[in-house]
């Protein structure tokens, strides 16, 4: 990583000295930071601001614009030639919680003198409920690739039927942590394919409890504390407590009011208060989900799907309720080598979409010298650049209900910024600096 060129050499010295002496958070709390001269992609109604100034105080954005007066006491960072974007919000950051099954291995048998290959089945989908917060040790997740990519807010998910959590990037030298849990009780997640078992999770849970004739005992149904889920408060000792203590959010005591804590989750989905995150394994699953959701016109869907699967079902996507989450890549038309710009098609169809920088990217775990290479290629191939920016920032923030805190650069929001050395949608753009709540990450 390159250093930001500070305008005044003296100030740089001063800053360095101070960095050694005081924890950063204190520094931020005390002095206003002014970043000047940059092109700012606000991801808000302000759009792109050229040669603009950003004032940060107490970890929040105090002012933003081209005509901002810089307080005399402010620490000034000259960012001429740089472009600043909001910190990225990854709407589908997959972690392993230890219940996924692998694809079955193939084996060959000889029968009647003929050789046959059997097995090779797809990995089975977990249909029992699990809270990720109950089984995830954040300290054991390798967040480095995500951090290098400028992701500052994570919707942490797992395959199968589960409840997500929201995590945020921190810069805490004392705890030596990159990421902390911000909200342990997130959205309801399901993974479906075209089979009864996985579809039944959606179907049975969406049904209002009264029409279901009480709580069923089915493992695919409402019982959240199957063999693998833990009721609140019964956390096994193996799960570190830091996961939740880091967050001030209270754990709702749903068990007191409802026989099934998931009932509230699902009634919120039914009423459209929160989207259900549906990961579809193939294109037909999109149609199956669409068919079974027609009964619940209020419900909102975050559909996690590959580009080709979205391409196949483009016409059946309901723009009023669906947000598509997909990896930012140029896709191939199914059964051919013809290239597709699926996000552009979604833009044309006015279907909302969000990019998950981590989703299904084989090179994500290695290194991302140019983390926005994918979106940049899509922009080159005709995707609107504002649409691409929104899909990385404010779009997923809105989907997760975090739009008041993160996702755009507006006054009052958290000062999570990514500084690029050039236009972020140039395929060669690299990240120079990331600010978390106004504190620079890279020294």
């Amino acid at each position, binding site marked *: 990583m390159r250093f930001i060129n500070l305008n005044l050499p003296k100030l740089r010295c001063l800053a360095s000295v101070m960095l050694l002496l005081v924890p950063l958070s204190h520094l931020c709390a005390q002095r206003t930071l002014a970043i000047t001269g940059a092109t700012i992609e606000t991801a808000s109604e302000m759009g792109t601001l050229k040669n603009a100034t950003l004032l940060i105080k107490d970890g929040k954005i105090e002012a933003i614009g081209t005509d901002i007066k810089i307080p005399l006491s402010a620490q000034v960072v000259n960012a001429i030639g740089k472009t600043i974007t909001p910190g990225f919000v990854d709407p589908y950051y997959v972690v392993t919680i230890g219940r996924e099954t692998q694809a079955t291995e193939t084996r060959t048998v000889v029968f009647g003198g003929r050789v046959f290959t059997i097995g090779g*089945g797809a990995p089975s989908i977990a249909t029992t409920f699990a809270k990720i917060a109950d089984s995830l040790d954040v300290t054991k997740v390798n967040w480095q690739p995500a951090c290098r990519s400028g992701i500052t807010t994570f919707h942490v998910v797992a395959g199968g039927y589960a409840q997500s959590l929201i995590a945020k990037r921190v810069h805490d030298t004392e705890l030596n942590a990159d990421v902390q849990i911000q909200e342990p009780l997130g959205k309801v997640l399901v993974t479906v394919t075209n089979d*009864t078992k996985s579809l039944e999770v959606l179907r049975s849970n969406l049904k209002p409890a009264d029409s279901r004739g009480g709580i069923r005992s089915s493992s695919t149904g409402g019982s959240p504390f199957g063999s693998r889920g833990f009721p609140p408060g019964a956390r096994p000792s193996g799960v570190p407590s830091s996961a939740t203590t880091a967050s001030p959010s209270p754990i709702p005591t749903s068990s007191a009011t409802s026989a099934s804590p998931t009932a509230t989750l699902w009634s919120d989905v039914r009423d459209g208060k929160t989207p259900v995150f549906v990961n579809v394994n193939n294109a037909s699953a999109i149609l*199956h989900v*669409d068919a079974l959701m027609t009964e619940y016109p209020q419900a909102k869907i975050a559909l996690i799907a590959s580009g080709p*699967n979205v391409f*196949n*079902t483009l016409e059946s996507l309901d723009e009023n309720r669906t947000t598509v989450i997909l990896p930012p890549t140029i896709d191939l038309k199914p059964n051919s080598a013809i*290239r597709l710009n699926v996000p552009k098609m979604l833009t044309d169809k*006015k279907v909302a979409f969000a990019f998950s920088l981590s989703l299904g990217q084989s090179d994500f775990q290695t290194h991302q010298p140019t983390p926005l290479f994918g979106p940049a290629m899509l922009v080159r191939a005709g995707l609107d650049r504002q649409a691409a920016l929104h899909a990385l920032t404010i779009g997923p923030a809105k989907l997760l209900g975090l739009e008041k805190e993160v996702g755009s650069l507006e006054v009052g929001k958290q000062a999570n910024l990514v500084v690029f050395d050039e236009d972020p949608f140039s395929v060669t753009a690299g990240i120079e600096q990331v600010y978390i709540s106004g504190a620079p990450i890279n020294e």
Partner: protein
Amino acid sequence: MNESLKTRIQIHLCVCETVLTSSVAAILFAVAVLNAPAFGQRPDQRPATPTTAETKPTEEKATKDKPENAKPKQTLAVVGGDIITVTRETIRGGTIVIEDGKITALGTQIEIPEGAKQIDASGKILCPGFVALNVSRIGINASSDSSAKNADGLDPFDDNVRLAVSVGLTTACQQINSGGGERRGRRAPGEDFPFTERFPGLDPDLNQLIQAQEQSERDFGEFLSLCPCCGLPILATDPLAIPKPTPIATSGSAVVKMSYGVLDGMLLAENVFLDANSGSLIGAANQRNWREQVELARKYLKDQAEHEKETAAGKKLTPPRKPVKDDVLRLVKNEVAMRIPANTVSEIQSLVELAKELDYRLVIDGAAECWVIGRELAESKASVILTPRIRRSPTFGAEDRTGTWIEATRVMQEQGVSFAVNALSSSISLNGLAGRDLTSLPLEAAFAVRGGASERTALAAITIVPATMMGLQKRIGSLEIGKDADLLILNGQPLDYRTYVETAIVNGKVVYERAEDRVLPVYNR
């Protein structure tokens, strides 16, 4: 695969507004112009959204349409083609009107409803979509889960669906839980033992082989292995052990429309046959067992009717216990036919006799030697499923009464036995061997013509006859008012080897267009 007319119009509009940027756009434009007459009557469907104007033709075919679901009444008129109805006379230069997936009008003096989307088929041949009876899992998930529902397993984006419909196959009857019979002593008679329980994800070929092995086990009374060299059974012990009755082990079937990209209406029917295992009715012990089952089924139906009457009268009684499986009941109620593989004259004769005696519909699958006993078959209720190209060698010295014969189709037609035609294979293969997989179904019917059947009979053998065998003759298999709008627009006679499907319509929706989808070669002959 789409209802592309709208797309075309949209593309046409945007092409007019923007610059022609790519060759694909040019092709689409040409197609749009070809269909120009349709512009006069704007289709009655969703009003054009503002997206239309913004849609730009891109190299990725950005505007490629996909079928919609749950939209207001959709009317489609296919105009000007020669309509081969199969069940009635061929209509020259006729019109077919389709509303909400059904044929609502058909003939020459047809008024096209206002707002109907039109497809010009002048100079083309229209015929009903083809129906295949032996399909192994196309467009449907192969779930080993016993509680799985067929409807949930449908996959309208299975590439094989696209390939199937590209040759005109619109309905496929598929085996779902391939029944492997049972091992004696472990299960009660009449109970299923789905093979998939033992080997999930089993290759269907292996399944067949194991079935054959189990059959020989039944025949010979002991577990046998097959010689890896010649495939003949190796006797383990005394071949004279008394065989125990083989259950009529059956498997479920699902009838699936090849509606590429459209889930709605894809599953047409389930369990349309009592699929009996080959050899399960051969031999005295088996036949006795089967007679018993049919009797039990009849008695149960009677008891049940009585029970219902008494319950209606207010009495509270325990309902009668179901002594047989549901498909036996359906057979006895004449809701389904029994489909059973049989090839030799003696096998066929004994099955025909049983069916006559116990009074149910019989479909003989394979029926290699049917031509020897055409008259007997004609006198019974039986029909047969043939694959004209399959060759079964005659017994030496009895060539005139054993083995297959290419002229079997002629004999069946002359005797008045209805026959369906199966393709050589139940699946689609892209290994390069041309004309041997499921997609060669119409070509297989051409071989029925080679054998001496008329074109009409041969076409019926892949349309109305298999539909009737499945009891779905009111839905599919011919072009008639009230039936499902599964129809093909062809560029030649249906059984001509050069003929291509230009457009395939399933449940009233265009799901394949040759010029646009480019599955098969596109060229001018």
